[in-house]
């Protein structure tokens, strides 16, 4: 499903050039539950951002399905994200003035769906992530774990091909992190959604079915487990 070949990304940082990704090649199949692991600064976020079409690449090709994202224009990328990708971020994840319901409905609003179609889908997914009855709460009235559940619901509500999560558990205690990861796993199993997430947490890595280990912008290990 995702074919990455010789992916290079450099950043200009003052007078220096930072080689964030130094020619990464990797294929990820549909339905995989993949963790990108590695120490801070190894290029995890950069890689997720490029796959997620919110950052540009300098060299190489990235195919998602049959789309070559390197050739897409800004607006095309925006449409592509809106229709095909789900995102879970580490922080500033939800719109603080909107309720859980409205946050989850947001991607469907962007797609221009009518409210009568939106409502059952949002209620269904909120139930699946265990937030039944909390639809009307705004994020500040939810715990960190519940907020991340809203994010997961929001990422999944439009049935995307691919969900990208940048350190989704980094701001949570280990128990809650575990629960969130279990929820992601469950969603992956149930909806066959492809998940790619980054982490530098040992416990989280162990849950992954596939582990790409990054170091200084290069994949130094690629493990699959059952």
């Amino acid at each position, binding site marked *: 499903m995702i074919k990455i070949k010789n992916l290079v990304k450099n950043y200009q940082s003052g007078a220096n050039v930072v080689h964030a990704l130094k020619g990464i090649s990797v294929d990820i199949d549909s339905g995989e539950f993949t963790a990108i692991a590695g120490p801070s600064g190894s290029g995890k976020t950069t890689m997720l951002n490029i796959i*997620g079409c*919110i*950052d540009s690449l300098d060299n190489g090709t990235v195919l998602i399905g049959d789309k070559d994202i390197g050739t897409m224009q800004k607006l095309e990328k*925006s449409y592509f994200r*809106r229709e095909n990708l789900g*995102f879970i971020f580490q922080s500033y994840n939800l*719109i603080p*003035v*909107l309720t859980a319901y*409205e946050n989850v409905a947001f991607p469907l609003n962007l797609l221009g769906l009518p409210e009568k179609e939106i409502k059952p889908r949002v209620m269904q997914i909120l139930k699946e992530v265990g937030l039944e009855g909390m639809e009307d709460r705004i994020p500040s009235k939810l715990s960190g774990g519940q907020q991340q559940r809203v994010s997961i619901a929001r990422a999944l509500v439009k049935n995307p091909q691919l969900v990208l999560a940048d350190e989704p558990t980094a701001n949570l205690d280990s128990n809650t992190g575990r629960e969130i990861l279990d929820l992601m796993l469950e969603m992956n199993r149930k909806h066959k959604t492809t998940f790619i997430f980054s982490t530098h947490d040992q416990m989280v890595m162990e849950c992954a079915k596939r582990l790409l280990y990054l170091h200084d912008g290069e994949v130094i290990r690629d493990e699959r487990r059952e």
Partner: protein
Amino acid sequence: MLFLINLAWKNLTRHKRRTIITSIALAFGLMLFIIMDSLLIGALEQSNINLIDSETGDGKILTPMAFEDLKFMPLSNRVKNPSEIISIVESLGAKASKRVNVSAEMIYTEDYFPKAGATPILLTGVDLESDNNVFKIFNEKSLVDGRFMSKGSDEVVIGSWLAEDIGAKVGSVFTLAVKTAADGDDPGYFQTIDVEVVGIINVSSPMVNRRVVYYPLDMADFNLELNDSVTEVAVRLPLGEKLENFNTKVEELLPEGYEFYTWREIGADYLALTEAKSGGSSIIIFLVIIIALVGITNTMLMTINERQQELGMMRALGMSDSNIRKAFILEAAGIGFIGSVVGVLLGCLLNIPMVNTGINFGPYLRDADMGYRISTYMYGIWNIKTIFSAFFLGLVIPVIVGIYPTKRAIQKSIPDCIYGR
């Protein structure tokens, strides 16, 4: 679109105090605009009415030469046959009264005044029987002290400000020095008339209060050797009659050498002055725009800066630039809407006493000649057009001003937004 409105509205409630302060600044400006406009236009309308009531009537029949010389008011260029002119005017359903206006010198001594001196005045000979048909001077309301002068006697009524200035009282006697008419070979001469102040009046025109001396017309005629001629026949139109209509009709009937001049033509200098002042409301509009510009730009920039990360997240989710722009414009319009509603409400509320009670500008107008024919109270008016414009401006200004900060919101790359770089 509905979810954008919902989002914009909820974002406005995020920093309630900031939203309120920004809208109040706008509201204050709009309120000021409504009030200033009400007072300026009110003053202008009232001033025009007062000019008509106490100085010009709806118009005057003069010789063209006299019209040219209105500033100096010599006695040359007179209306030789006022009764004929008056019957023409009356045949058209209007009312008329004859007057003699002449520049004169008022000379007073220590016998009756605290200090001797001389002062230029405007001597107005009035026909006491018909003056009230055109002007509103000789009524109980305007009389401050004493009584009105009587026909056939050397009595005068003077303006209250003039009386104050020189210390005149009822019973004071002073001398008028007037140049009689230069007619043909006769160069005229200086005539001096001793007169007694029998009354002091205060009318709505500062001009009258400051420098007019009223004298019976028959006495003016006798002392200035006018032989029944006058300097003007003032006209008051019947209610509802249009000046232009009357103008065309009367000019057909008037004998050679006389013309009808409307109060606007006679008061052209005054109108230029006062109408320029009404342009002051455009300065207020400008101020409103500045307040809105600074306040709203600042608020929007603050908002956008602190929502950088959130905006990055929303853009990552596929929210288009145009939707982000719309959301912010709606937010700005929300501030504008609150500001407009509050501003128009406050403006109208404050305008009620302006219209009903007015503001006493007397002490200020007494010392500074602003051209307005108002000597005490200025009243506001209800100007629906201004109230609507204020509302509209309040809505539109924030939207226009909001465009620049909104542009900034989508300039940065998405990762730069999300990671707060």
